[in-house]
């Protein structure tokens, strides 16, 4: 499958990149490209201009700063998975990074790119020819969502592996544009809208992840279940963060809803069965993949059980 035509530019600074994104409506950021280029071959993503931000320096380092751990958005996943500070303070993040796709995807793909990936659905992630069997689906610019046979709503899933572990650690993200920068909770950038999964202002570029100091004092785990042990997106991905000191427990999922799901109200002191119930109630997966929603729901509880088992 050939790529569609587009213009290409390599800005050397963030302000420049941001201005380009604001000026050109159809401009899209190129990081590792492992998600976007596939979607382009499928013609569900048709940028008029590709903005390769990999020439902008300073976006791919991992460092401790004032007690926090800062991870540049362009850090390759492979580096995240082997970085000594990540392994020590946020092992769940390393587990997640080493579970993404295959070794090659971890080399090419970046943590920022993984977070900002497009949502997925069996009716959406298909070639243009495949999708011509039906009218365009809502996410692709049409009217109907074929998952639920309703109009004007999208039931695609967010399937990125990195989100759950970051969310359970209360990660923040730094968003930069031509005007300046802001730092917000990662959780807030996920819109829950299957058609436009990210809440970013026009021209905003995610440059950095910040893990707060207290989150690095707990235990973090990521567990992924997929058909195969490589290449595949998660059927369900689950992360857990626990602090035995404070008794806090945080759980998050990917691939079960239109955005990653954070489970509210779980406590380390609760019974395992109650935590599992809370977890599996936190989202209602739909049949938008070749794996059944009921299996996903089951796995939400099972993965949590397995991770809780590791705490002891």
């Amino acid at each position: 499958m050939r790529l569609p035509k587009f213009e290409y530019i390599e800005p050397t600074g963030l302000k420049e990149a941001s201005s380009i994104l604001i000026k050109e409506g159809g401009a899209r950021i190129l990081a590792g490209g492992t998600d976007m280029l596939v979607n382009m071959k499928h013609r569900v993503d048709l940028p008029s201009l590709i903005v390769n931000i990999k020439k902008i320096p300073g976006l791919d380092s991992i460092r401790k700063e004032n007690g926090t751990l800062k991870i540049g958005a362009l850090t390759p996943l492979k580096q995240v998975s082997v970085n000594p500070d990540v392994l020590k303070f946020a092992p769940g993040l390393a587990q997640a990074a080493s579970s993404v796709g295959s070794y090659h995807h971890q080399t090419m793909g970046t943590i920022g790119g993984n977070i900002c990936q497009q949502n997925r659905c069996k009716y959406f992630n298909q070639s243009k020819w495949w999708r011509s069997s039906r009218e365009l689906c809502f996410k692709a610019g049409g009217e109907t969502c074929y998952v639920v046979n309703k109009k004007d709503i999208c039931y695609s899933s967010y399937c990125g592996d990195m989100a759950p572990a970051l969310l359970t650690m209360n990660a923040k993200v730094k968003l930069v544009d031509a005007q300046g920068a802001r730092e917000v909770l990662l959780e807030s950038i996920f819109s829950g809208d299957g058609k436009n999964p990210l809440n970013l202002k026009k021209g905003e570029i995610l440059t950095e992840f910040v893990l707060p100091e207290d989150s690095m004092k707990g235990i973090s785990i990521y567990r992924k279940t997929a058909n195969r042990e490589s290449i595949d997106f998660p059927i369900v991905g689950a992360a857990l963060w626990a602090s035995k000191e404070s008794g806090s427990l945080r759980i998050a999922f990917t691939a079960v809803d239109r955005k990653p799901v954070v489970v509210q109200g779980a406590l380390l002191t609760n019974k395992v069965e109650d935590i599992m119930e809370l977890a599996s109630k936190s989202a209602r997966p739909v049949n938008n993949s070749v794996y059944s929603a009921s299996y996903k729901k089951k796995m939400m509880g099972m993965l949590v059980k397995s991770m809780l088992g590791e705490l002891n």
Partner: protein
Amino acid sequence: MEKKYSVVGARLPMLDAGEKVKGAARFTDDIVLPGMLHGKILRSPFPHAKILNIDTSKAEKLIGVKGVITGRDIPDVPYGIVPKAKDEFALAKIKVRHVGEAVVAVCATDPEIAEEALDLIKVEYEQLPGVFDPLDAIKEGAPLVHDNTPNNISASIHKSFGEGEKAFDDCDLVFDNTFYSQAVNHAPLEPHAAVAQFDPLKGEMVIWSSTQIPFFLRRNISTTILIPESKIRVIKPRVGGGFGQKIDMFSKDFCACWFARQTGRPVKFLYDREEIFVATRQRHPMYVRVKTGMKKDGTIHAQRFWAHADGGAYNSTAPLMITLSCYFLMVPYRVPNLVYEGYHVYTNKPVGGAMRGHGIPQARFAVERQLDMIAVEMGIDPAELRIKNSLHAHEPHPGGFIINTCGFSESVEKAAEAIGWREKRGKLPYGRGVGMGGASFPSGVSNMSHLASGAVVQLGQDGAVTLLTGAADIGQGAETVIAQIVAEELGVRLEDIRVTAADTGITPLDAGTFGSGVTVRAGNAALEAATSLKKKLFEFVAKEMEANPLDLVARDRLIYVKGSPDKGMPLMEAIKRYRYADLPMPIVGRGSWMAPASEPTTLLNEEGNFAPNYSFMTQAAEVEIDFDTGKVKVVKMVTAHDCGTPINPLLVEGQLEGSIMGGIGHALYENVITEKGQVMNPSFLDYGFPTAMEMPEMEGISIETDDPVGPFGAKESGEGTQLAPAPAIVNAIYDAIGVNFMELPITPEKILKALEENKRSEKPRS
């Protein structure tokens, strides 16, 4: 002690391994010719529809487009690999019968322009009701996929052996179970491709095609492009795997030739992975019902078998597939009374074709699963049950099979020993288990016409041996194995053999790579050619050495009287003397071989032995269930395998190991999922093609039975080992959690459901 053979039986790298590791092996898509055009195909988005109108005007005007054709532009000559089952056209005529059927072909100066051209074509369809399951398709009133095929049954077989159904009256126990095996894609790494070039002065077509069947392809091109076979040359470049998916002519072959003739320029067609999933071939999904009658003492007395194969929209190998599926119930166990009926049913889905095992994996899964259920019910150990019912060499066979060598019962014993059967079966903790499956496969089919092979071998004055063989090496190493056979016979080394293969313009005919017949058929043809050459050489050398030609031995470039290698004549010396005696060089030997059959018959109408020999094997698996996710981990897979004589043990092991991964995919990971005829996972992102992470520990045990018909005693080793891994795994799952699964694949979800039911019903294990 000297080894029996010096080249046969040696672990030797493939002849073309060097070029492959350098990336220098030339596959079809690596061929670039001056002025070459690129073709692409527009395919139907609907499973069943009338073609109302095709507007190609915009596409024709696109700069760079050099040709556009539809079904209206091509002759009304259907094709297919089995002559009596021809039902396909390269481009759909009147209606489309499956999502992905070819409708329009274009060629352009650039692949990108060709793709753009497809976007400019407007096809109007009128959708028709479709059928998506064979059991629905055979019902009265179901939509017909082909108007001339009532009940959508395009091929069927009914046979009865022994007393047939009556024999069930004499059985002490009768078991009746229904099983299902899913759609699986061969998924060779190399996509289907063809490059064609036409010489208008001579009216000659040359086509390079990633194919398993160069000679059949030539015939199909001839009848559809309307050029005599003698003016068509099919050349098979290196092929990146086939597994059966490259048997058949495809639209790409036809259209490349058509456009090459129309434009006067070379034309390349390359399929992308999605096209391979929807528009080539897949393993037939199959409903299989088995009724088995047992005697109290554990012997199989009667068996009845019903199969409904989901053929998809076209036949491909239909009559052959359904026949093989049924016939192969008669090995490896003694089944004195057998009835079967098999149906190949059209549906509006991707086309089923030959896939490693060709209809037999599905049947074998059913039979081996049921055998285990029978063993449990009767309180007999499954290994012992298999040994008890095992065929043996030379015993009379209800179907007329001539089985000269049979290592089956030995394979059961050896596989059981290697997996630790006695210590483990029924004894491992809940969640772990062992299981086994037995199988047998023909080394190509005889009792059919057309399946012959020829070879020419030449010994030149440089001491090199040229081998011309029609055999189609698709990566399994056929050229190497045949070269080893020739090298052994002539007493030279493998590196002395120069192979030219699978070029219909140069090499003698070979039927092609299917049915696991190449080693025996093409190997025997080459052996005969080498023997004929050796005879001429030995006649001369014997005179020179004042010996009897029958006493001469050739080995490792030396010719000597048996027992006196120290007084031998080096081959180069013999050649030199031969030349100086003014005898014509090169010395040529010719051979041709067809599997012995009492008379030319067809498999479908006659009984009798229809394979030159049969391989036998048992596979045993150990599995471990993850109770949280339901995932099944195959811990170890053992194969005890009788392929007569392994000509090249390194390559035989490669076949076993590859087969096992394919079997694991079949059992656990792979499924071509369709919704109303549309494949939902037509890419490697969503299709469960096993990765290295899914690989178990693998052990292979060779059982050598030295078959009299096979070259140097060889039997097949390409397909048989893909029959039993799936049942072995599913039988092991029974041992692990006490659940009988009747359909494939066994997904984690099914396991979790079963575990839950186990808890609810407090079901004890075994």
